[in-house]
């Protein structure tokens, strides 16, 4: 129990630190949100009236304290760029990004795990060599390029897939899938390549340990050796990696949403940064921080489930 409380405390501190850092960075960065938004066509009257309305003429500490106070009442403030509550914008986009990220994660696990086990068992045989070199290629592909190639060869040729925009799950499940599968695949492919290697190495490491030799000499069937004993022990490092890829998948959505014009969090983040839309950036950064920290929190908890010894440390 103490373990969990300590973890939660760490979570809160991380989030608070991130919020202060983003706020300060934004004050140092040149560029003014109102001018960036209104562009060259604005006259001074319009600029001033908007600044007053948005409260951007108030002292910095006041703006920050206001923002923090808002958080505790569930009010993340209004986006400067979109003149809408940040929470509304986030809620609209959360399903898109979560769907893509979740689907990508699913595809990664679906392929990386069995392929890794397979390659480890066939170590140094032909199929292992082939798989290892193919994944080398997979790791080297930048995702925006992969996205373009997928659009060009799959998206444009298979009627089922849409290459622009998003159809909500509530509207049509088929529609949602048609907009989400390709972006998810784009994020997943390089990740499969990386994770495949982790799984393979992790299992190979275990295979060389004494206990494996012992259970093998005991005469246990290979199936039980691999799945019951090796896999369970190899799972700890693999789990760590899957904790980390959640962060990478979330980062991956930023680029992929741009290519597929998916109205998700990543796309919103790019817009909000280039427009210096501070309340929106803060909101998104909070969301990403909380997601990543939370996933790692879950991973930590899972450690102790898989290996009870961890709780003692």
């Amino acid at each position: 129990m103490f373990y969990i409380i300590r973890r939660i405390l760490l979570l809160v501190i991380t989030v608070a630190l991130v919020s202060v850092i983003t706020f300060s960075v934004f004050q140092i960065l040149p560029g003014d949100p109102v001018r960036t938004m209104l562009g060259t066509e604005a006259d001074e009257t319009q600029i001033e009236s908007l600044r007053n309305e948005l409260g951007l003429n108030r002292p910095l500490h006041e703006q920050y304290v206001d923002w923090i106070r808002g958080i505790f009442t569930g009010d993340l403030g209004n986006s400067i760029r979109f003149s809408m509550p940040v929470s509304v914008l986030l809620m609209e986009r959360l399903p898109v990004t979560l769907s893509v990220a979740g689907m990508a994660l699913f595809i990664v696990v679906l392929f990386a795990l069995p392929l890794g086990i397979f390659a480890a068992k066939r170590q140094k045989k032909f199929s292992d060599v082939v798989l290892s070199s193919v994944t080398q290629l997979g790791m080297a592909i930048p995702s925006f390029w992969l996205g373009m190639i997928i659009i060009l060869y799959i998206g444009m040729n298979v009627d089922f897939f849409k290459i622009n925009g998003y159809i909500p799950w509530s509207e049509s499940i088929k529609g949602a899938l048609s907009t989400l599968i390709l972006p998810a695949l784009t994020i997943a492919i390089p990740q499969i390549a990386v994770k495949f290697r982790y799984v393979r190495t992790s299992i190979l490491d275990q295979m060389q340990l004494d206990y494996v030799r012992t259970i093998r000499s005991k005469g246990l069937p290979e199936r039980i050796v691999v799945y019951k004993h090796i896999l369970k022990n190899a799972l700890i490092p693999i789990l760590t990696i899957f904790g980390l890829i959640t962060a990478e998948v979330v980062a991956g959505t930023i680029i992929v949403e741009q290519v597929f014009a998916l109205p998700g969090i990543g796309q919103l983040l790019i817009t909000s940064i280039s427009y210096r839309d501070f309340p929106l950036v803060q909101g998104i950064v909070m969301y990403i921080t909380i997601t990543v920290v939370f996933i790692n929190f879950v991973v930590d908890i899972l450690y102790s489930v898989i290996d009870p010894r961890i709780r003692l440390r």
Partner: protein
Amino acid sequence: MSKRKYWLTIVLLVAVLFISACSNSEEGSEKATESEDGSEATAGASDQAQEIRVRINDDPDFLDPHRATASISFQMILNMFEGLFIPQTDGSLTEGLAESYEVSEDGLTYTFTIRDDVTFHNGEPLTIDDVVYTFERLMGLNGGEKLSGNFDNVASIDAPDEKTFVMTLKEAHSNFLYSLTALQSAIIPQSNDGEHNENPIGTGPFAFVDYSPGANLELTKNEDYWQDGLPYLDNVTFVFQSDDQAAVMNLLAGEVDVTGVPGHRVSEVEDSFNISHQNNNSTLIITFNQEKEPFKDMKVRQAINLAINKQDIIDSVFSGYATPIGSNMSPAMGEYYLDGLQDVYQRDVEKAKQLLAEAGYPDGFETKITVSSHNDLYSSVAQIAVENLKEIGIDVEIEVVEWGIWLERVYFGRDYELTTIDLTGRPSAYEILDDYISTNDAENFFLFDNQEFDQVMADVRKETEIEKQIDYYHRAQEILNEESAAVYIADYQILWGSKQNISGLKSYPFWFHDMKEVKFD
């Protein structure tokens, strides 16, 4: 035994993957031809759905027409709003919500008769109160913030009866009517006060349905539109897609019906789509901070102008799809445009060197060009300019900054030496040229200061006769050219790719996707 089973599963899985990958591409190519046939078939049918999807690069800044300033916003929202006057494709104006108007002899009093057959999208009729409300809101007379500086010259507004609206100016201004279009003063209903951005209501051919930030803006047909028989389309969706390359694929895949196509990709789409060329009336320039040495000296500016190879820029950056210009006015402006100036600064390295020497810089100098990163075009232009200027001994360093920083530092801060930018087109010749008036602190970021130019622009404000106005505008363009106020490169064309069965697309000398007369045949 079980080991073999596991093997089998994996082999099968991989096999399935490969097969599906292969069959996807085969199936795909078949489907592609099918859909081409399909679109031809529907092109012939008359029951084609009148719904259009138009790709736009970015979100609107505001939907409230009085708050919006970005040209990209007006590109869409002008379909929802109208002003007392409506700008036309040739840069002229016609009566819009004002049925007719009169100007007093001294040019100070404008009397408008308001149309009585117009209803707003919410079903309420347009009344004189809405017109008064609109201008009071813009001028900040009804308690709110002043939203526009365009009406500072208005002394009073008045509504003597239910159909008549009177505006009195402090000083005569021949360009005044141009501030009465939806670009500057869209007429909006008083009953919608406080909701103009969340739920915009106007009198235009299309009404607001929904706005999803980052995704799209949906409009629907205004069934009660006052111009009989218009519009034809039932639905208009503006789809936001910032990536130009992806947008072309969207067009090819049939997911959007209209999009801008980068010049170098025209060959991919021209066979199966219509390509229309729009002189978008924006002027691409390289300009100098004219308060700084050495750009204070006209000879230095002229030397730079002579050194830069404009045709190279047009060919390499715009694949040739651009019209050379010689001052801040494009041929898109019709008779206001003065032809011939584009040939004055033909590339001439020797003459440029000579001018530099005369100005006291025989060995050239070092300087910096600050460009925005929001569009590749600026860095491309800068790269060519740098090479050209090297030949006359000027060493230029390129500094690429974010759009927000460019605005702050260059446009508003005027802390720069050289920069390149395209100035957005406007429907009125006066507004295009007034950037260069020395007292126009807000827009004159070149810090151009020329007494004769200021005088010409002051004269044109008082001139009521169109012919004489045009003479003044021509002289103003000559001055900009003589003084080399900037290196005027080109009005680059926007190439619109659209489905072949779409008709009625119009191009304006400013950014406007007019959907009023568009239809699928």
